[in-house]
């Protein structure tokens, strides 16, 4: 235990005395939060929707068919009551629910006006915006046709509601993504670099010729980064709350536990990288290529995974950040608990075990 403490103290000294390390650890999060404040727009494809039709007449069926037959949406079935709406959204698959008021067709014919409600899952603000405007456009299109045939002035008034993110604030979307990115960089990049640095400067040679076990060396090097990354996670959540007004609907302790899990996955990845490469430069290159880019591009952080080519969708399944972002969004924005994120959590746990197992197996107790 004393050995371990000595090791951790030494590691903290390295971190606190290196300006560049400090910059990456604490400068980067702030910069990234600013950069990703810009909302990136994108296209729609295969969005799952459900319809709650309280009228069930010819017109509502026509409108529904028109929406469903467009290439943007996949129809997941009719709902039977208002409770189901909430349930479906919490499951996370359905991005939009369309509600026709009772007697929709009758109202339209008799009073020349009827109400339709569009509810979108706005925890991904971008997609929600697009989904709603596409749907509105389709309904408008149908109205134009109807008017031509009937020759009368009629109107359908779409009422739009954004679930989970009423103000459509972009921060709701990017804070979980930035959190994933920062934790990934700090944890994976920094650990892979700090371990390869010892190889490069030759101090690893001396550490090997000592009674330290590989696992002691690795845990000793990694512990400070767990603490610092966790500190970063808390900072980001706090920043989201105080600066962007982003609430934490679900359990805060569950959120922090999931953060800790994701940090562990990233750290084990970093250790794994350091067992493959020999130099700091290679470690940096690997971390950037196989961790950072997929975390930004394939995690659903900026571009919806559903819109990607199939091959990239497969690749996205092995990006840890994807699962983490789903978990964070569920907990922070929808207020769901473990019951809804256990699958993603389990995936992350398996990833961590896989990388730790392989790292310990690959860790060289000698120089060759």
């Amino acid at each position, binding site marked *: 235990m004393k050995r371990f403490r000595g*090791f951790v103290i*030494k590691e903290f000294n390295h971190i606190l005395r290196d300006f560049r390390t400090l910059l990456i650890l604490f400068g980067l999060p702030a910069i990234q939060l600013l950069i990703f404040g810009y909302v990136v727009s994108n296209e729609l494809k295969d969005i799952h929707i459900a319809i709650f039709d309280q009228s069930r007449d010819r017109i509502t069926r026509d409108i529904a068919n028109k929406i469903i037959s467009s290439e943007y949406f996949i129809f997941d079935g009719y709902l039977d009551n208002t409770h189901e709406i909430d349930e479906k959204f919490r499951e996370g698959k359905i991005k939009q629910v369309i509600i026709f008021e009772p007697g929709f067709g009758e109202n339209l014919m008799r009073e020349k006006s009827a109400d339709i409600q569009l509810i979108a899952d706005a925890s991904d603000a971008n997609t929600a915006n697009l989904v709603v405007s596409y749907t509105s456009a389709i309904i408008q299109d149908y109205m134009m046709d109807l008017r031509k045939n009937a020759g009368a002035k009629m109107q359908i008034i779409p009422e739009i509601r954004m679930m989970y993110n009423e103000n459509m604030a972009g921060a709701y979307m990017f804070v979980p993504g930035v959190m994933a990115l920062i934790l990934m960089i700090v944890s994976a990049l920094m650990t892979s670099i700090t371990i390869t640095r010892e190889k490069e400067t*030759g*101090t690893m040679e001396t550490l090997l*010729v000592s*009674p330290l076990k590989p696992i002691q060396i690795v845990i000793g090097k990694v512990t400070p980064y767990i603490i610092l990354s966790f500190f970063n996670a808390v900072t980001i959540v706090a920043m989201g709350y105080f600066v962007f007004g982003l609430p934490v609907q679900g359990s805060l302790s569950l959120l922090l536990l999931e953060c800790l899990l994701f940090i562990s996955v990233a750290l084990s990845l970093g250790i794994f990288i350091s067992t493959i490469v020999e130099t700091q430069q290679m470690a940096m290159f690997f971390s950037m290529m196989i961790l950072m880019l997929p975390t930004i591009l394939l995690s659903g952080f900026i571009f919806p995974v559903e819109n990607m080519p199939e091959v990239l969708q497969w690749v996205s399944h092995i990006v840890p950040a994807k699962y983490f972002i789903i978990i964070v969004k569920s907990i922070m924005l929808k207020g769901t608990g473990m019951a809804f994120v256990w699958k993603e959590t389990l995936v992350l746990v398996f990833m961590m075990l896989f990388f730790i197992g392989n790292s310990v197996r690959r860790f060289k107790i*000698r*120089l060759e």
Partner: protein
Amino acid sequence: MNKISVDIQNISKSYKDVKALKDISLQINQGELFGLIGPDGAGKTSLIRILTTLLIPDSGIATVEGYDVVKDYKEIRKITGYMAGRFSLYQDLTVEENMNFYATVFGTTIEENYDLVKDIYSHIEPFKKRRAGKLSGGMKQKLALSCALIHRPDILILDEPTTGVDAVSRKEFWEMLMRLKDHSITILVSTPYMDEAELCDRVALIQDGIILSVDTPGNITGNYEGKLLAVRAEDLYQLKKDLAGYEHTLSVYLFGQNLHLTMMEKNSEKDLRSYLKTKGHGELRIDQINPNIEDCFLDLMAGKERNP
């Protein structure tokens, strides 16, 4: 009879197509200051890394204090103090922090073994708040040695500790090593500097992965066959060319201001002097001298080339 600390039997080691060590056998006694002498690329570091359990030999057996370097590597790592070729210090940590770190790694404290390192550490203690990266080469070397000694090892293995260190520090360093013998620690030092060989109890001369000779420095120089002459003249370069062309010359090497010349037995100094006169060398001086380790090394190397 001395007890054996390090026992090396028929060790070979290759890297891809380079044979670094060729069937080497060697014994080092307990409490001995043993020098592994040879030029760069001779195989010194490979042999040392095998003994420190960092490399696995292709064939052969080696033991340190009775522990096998492959099977019992964990035991060896507990009793070995190792100073790698590059000073393995944390440049961004202070002198004191480096010491404390290595002490805790081995489960001890500076205070516990202060008597052992005091002689060395006291030189750098005034700078204990200074970062290791800001120390001079000589001080880094003393710090690295202190770190290697802090856990009171049974055997101290140093890989070229004096390379890149100034002459004064080198001398001081060797004095420290010799004083360490009082603590009955076995010390194995590798060095490319031949003059350091004379400070060891015994040395092994190594070249191209082969051990040329193992003996005390005195015996090695004593066994030098033939007569060694130091020759000097105004034009050293021309003198070397002429001596190399002389029919009775066995070998001629440049040593500072002198040429060290070995001749085939029968020839006398008089013939040499008249030969050089005819070549027109002025200020000629010829003295018979005692060979040093480097002469012996060069002679052994040449002998190996003559009858491989």
